[in-house]
C-alpha cells in the first residue's frame, strides 16, 4: 500500500464525521477521497465535500466502486454499521468504525467475523485513548512508575446532541431504533473503553442505573452511572450522559480520577484549552486537540505497516458488552456477571 492512504467517508450522520472529514483532509498520510451519504445528512455531506475539495456520492456503493480507495471511515448510524461493513468488505477496503461498533452483540460479532474473513483491518474509534492526559496515565501504568492501578472514577457529560452547532441533523440520537441507546451509550462508551484499556483487563461484573432521568419526554435513556469490576481487581466507575445545561462552558465535560498504589491522577478535561467570554456567557475552547489526528495516524500505520490496529473490533465488542450489561443491570436491578451476559445474548 502506498504511504498515502485514500480514505472515504461512508455516512455523515455521526457528529464526529465532520471532524474526521477535516482530520483526513489535513492528515499528511491520508487523502480524503470522497464523502457518501444518502440519508438525512446528505446535504451537509455535499457541503462538506465541496469545502474539502473532494467528491460527494449519494450512494455508498458509488464511493466503494472507486478502485484506488484503500479505507473508509464509518460515520453512519451504529444500527446500520453491519450492513455497511458488509458492503465495504466486499470491496476489500479497510474500516475505521465510529463507536459504538454496533448496537447488539450479534451485530458486533458479525462485523468482527466479516472483517476477519475478508482480511481487512477493522479499527473502532474511541477518543480518550488518544487524548494527551490519558496517554500519560497509560504510560505511567505500563512503565510501572505509577504502581498498581486501584480504581478509576470517570465522568462524561455532554450537552444534548440535538443542540450541536453545524448543519448536521442529530435527531436520530433520540430515536431508539436508530441509536440503540441514549446519552449514557453515546458519550459513556468512550469512557467504558478507557476504563477497560487502563485496567488492562476484562470486565467481570457491572452494576448500573441508566435511564431517562433528565429529559422525561425522551424515548431513549439520557444518563447513567455504572460500577465495573475487572478480572484483575481494578474497580472503575462512570457517570455519563446528556447532563450539561445549554449554558455550560464546554460541549463535553470529561473527568478521570485515577488511584494507583503510588499515585493519583486528577484529569479535569480532555484537552488543553483557554476560555472565551462573550456577552452570551463563556466557552472553553481547546487549542490542542490531538485525538483525531493520533487516531488516524494509528489507523494509517496499521494499514501501511500491516499491523493490528490499536483498537480492534474485539475491543469494540467488549466495550459494547459492558454498556449492554449496564442496561441489563438497570432493568433487572441486579449486578450483571459478564460471562452470563455473553451466554444469554452472544
Amino acid at each position, binding site marked *: 500500500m502506498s504511504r498515502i492512504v485514500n480514505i472515504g467517508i461512508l455516512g455523515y450522520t455521526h457528529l464526529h464525521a465532520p471532524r474526521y472529514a477535516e482530520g483526513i483532509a489535513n492528515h499528511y498520510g491520508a487523502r480524503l477521497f470522497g464523502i457518501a451519504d444518502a440519508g438525512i445528512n446528505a446535504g451537509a455531506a455535499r457541503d462538506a465535500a465541496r469545502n474539502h475539495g473532494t467528491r460527494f456520492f449519494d450512494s455508498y456503493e458509488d464511493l466503494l466502486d472507486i478502485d484506488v480507495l484503500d479505507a473508509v471511515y464509518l460515520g453512519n448510524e451504529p444500527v446500520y454499521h453491519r450492513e455497511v461493513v458488509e458492503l465495504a468488505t466486499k470491496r476489500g477496503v479497510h474500516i475505521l468504525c465510529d463507536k459504538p461498533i454496533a448496537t447488539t452483540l450479534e451485530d458486533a460479532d458479525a462485523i468482527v467475523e466479516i472483517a476477519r474473513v475478508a482480511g481487512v483491518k477493522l479499527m473502532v474509534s474511541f477518543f480518550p485513548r488518544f487524548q494527551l492526559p490519558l496517554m500519560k496515565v497509560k504510560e505511567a501504568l505500563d512503565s510501572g512508575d505509577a504502581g498498581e492501578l486501584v480504581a478509576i472514577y470517570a465522568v462524561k457529560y455532554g450537552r444534548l446532541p440535538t443542540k450541536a452547532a453545524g448543519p448536521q441533523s442529530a435527531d436520530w440520537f433520540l430515536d431508539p431504533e436508530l441509536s440503540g441507546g441514549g446519552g449514557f451509550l453515546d458519550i459513556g462508551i468512550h469512557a467504558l473503553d478507557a476504563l477497560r484499556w487502563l485496567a488492562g483487563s476484562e470486565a467481570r461484573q457491572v*452494576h448500573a442505573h441508566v435511564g431517562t432521568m433528565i429529559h422525561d419526554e425522551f424515548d431513549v435513556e439520557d444518563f447513567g*452511572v455504572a*460500577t465495573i469490576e475487572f478480572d484483575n481487581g481494578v474497580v472503575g466507575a462512570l457517570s455519563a450522559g446528556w447532563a450539561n*445545561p445549554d449554558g455550560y462552558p464546554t460541549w463535553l465535560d470529561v473527568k478521570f480520577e485515577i488511584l494507583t*498504589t503510588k499515585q*493519583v491522577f486528577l484529569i479535569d478535561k480532555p484537552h488543553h484549552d483557554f476560555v472565551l467570554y462573550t456577552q452570551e456567557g463563556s466557552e472553553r475552547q481547546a487549542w490542542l486537540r490531538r485525538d483525531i489526528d493520533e487516531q488516524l495516524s494509528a489507523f494509517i500505520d496499521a494499514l501501511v505497516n500491516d499491523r493490528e490496529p490499536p483498537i480492534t473490533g474485539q475491543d469494540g465488542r467488549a466495550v459494547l458488552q459492558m454498556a449492554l450489561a449496564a442496561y441489563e443491570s438497570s432493568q433487572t*436491578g441486579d449486578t450483571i456477571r459478564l460471562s452470563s451476559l455473553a451466554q444469554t445474548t452472544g
Partner: protein
Amino acid sequence: MPEDQDLRVALVGCGNIGLKAHLPAYARIPDVVVVAVCDTDERLVAAAAELTEAVPYTDLADVLSKEDVDIVDICTPPSTHAKLSIQAMEAERHVLCEKPIAHTLEDADAMIESARVNGVKLMIGQTRRFDHRYVAMKEQIDAGRVGQPVFIRRAERQFLPCPADAWYWDPALGGGVILDIGIHVLDLFRWMFGQEPVEVRAVAKAVHQAAQKAAQKAGSFDYAMITCKFADGGIGFAETSWAHPSTFGSGLYASLDVVGTQGKLEYSDRGTNPMLVFDEESGAEFPRYFALMSSTEHAFEAQIVHFLDSVRNGSSFAVDAHDARVALSMALAAQQSAMTDQVVTLPATVAHEDISQENVTLTAIASSSEEISA
C-alpha cells in the same frame, strides 16, 4: 467563669474531634461554657482541661453526680455512644453526640427511645448539613435552580495514617471507610434529594497493607464506591477513600456534583480554593484554611448553635436522631453490600445478625477519621 444564663456542657471524649472541633466552637459561642471534660485516657483529659477552665474527669458517672451540667457532648468511639448517651439522658441531660449515632441500629433505637422517655434532646453530629458550602448548594436546589436533582456524585478521599494495629482498621472495633466517611455521604444524598433511600450497592477494596491485614478478619475496607437509589429515582454515587496518597491533602479532599433536569452544580475543594502557594522546598500547594479536612470550624459552630437553640427554645432539629439512624442504616447496608457482593434494599433489614453471619461484628468506630488527618 460560667454565668447564670449560660448553658453548661460536659465534653466526653477528648480525642481530636472533641479538642479540635467541639471545644474551639464552644469557646466562640456566647452563653455556653464547658465546665467538665471527661475521657478514660488521663493524658487526653489533662490536655483538654488545660485548654479550658473545665474540671477533668475519667468517669461520666462522676460528672453526672458532681457537676450541674445541662448538656453532655459525646465525642467518643461509636461503640460507646449508646451506653454513654443513655447514661447522660437517664440523668436528664441533653445529648449532642458525634456521628455515627451508634454502630448498630439496636443501639441507635435505644438512644432514640431514651431521649423520648427522659424528655431530653438528642442530636447527632451530621456535620455536613451545617457546612456552609453544602447549605448554599442545597439552597440553590431548593430554589429550583437546577430543576429536579436526579444524580449526585460525591467524593471524600484522604490517607489514613494509622498503623496496622490501630482500631480504625479493625472490623471488630468498627473500622472501615464505609461507616466512617460513607455515613456522611449517604446522609448528604438523602438531604439533598429530599427522598428516602430504597437500595444500596457498594464495591469496596482493602488497598493498603494495614487494611488488607484487617480485611483478613473480614469487612475492613479503605476504598469504596457506593451507589444509592432513592424513592423518586434519584441516584447518589460516592467514592470514599482512605487509600489516597498521604500528600493528597485537604485541598483536594472532597467534590460534589449535582445533575438536575434544568442545570448542574459543581463543587470541589480543588476548584473552590482561591490560592496556590509555591514553596522552595515543598513546591506547589493548595493552602489549608480549616482545622479539619472535611468540614470547616464554622460548620461545627453552626451545628452546636443549632443544638443549643433547641435546648433553650424546645425547637425541633433540622437533622434529628432519626435522620442519623437512617444514615446509619444506609451505611450498614453499604457495608453489607460490599461484603456480600449483592444489592441491599432499604428500609434496611440490616440487623446486626445479618452482618455477623458474615463473621464480622460491626462494633465501634471511634471518632471519625477526619480528626486523624487534622
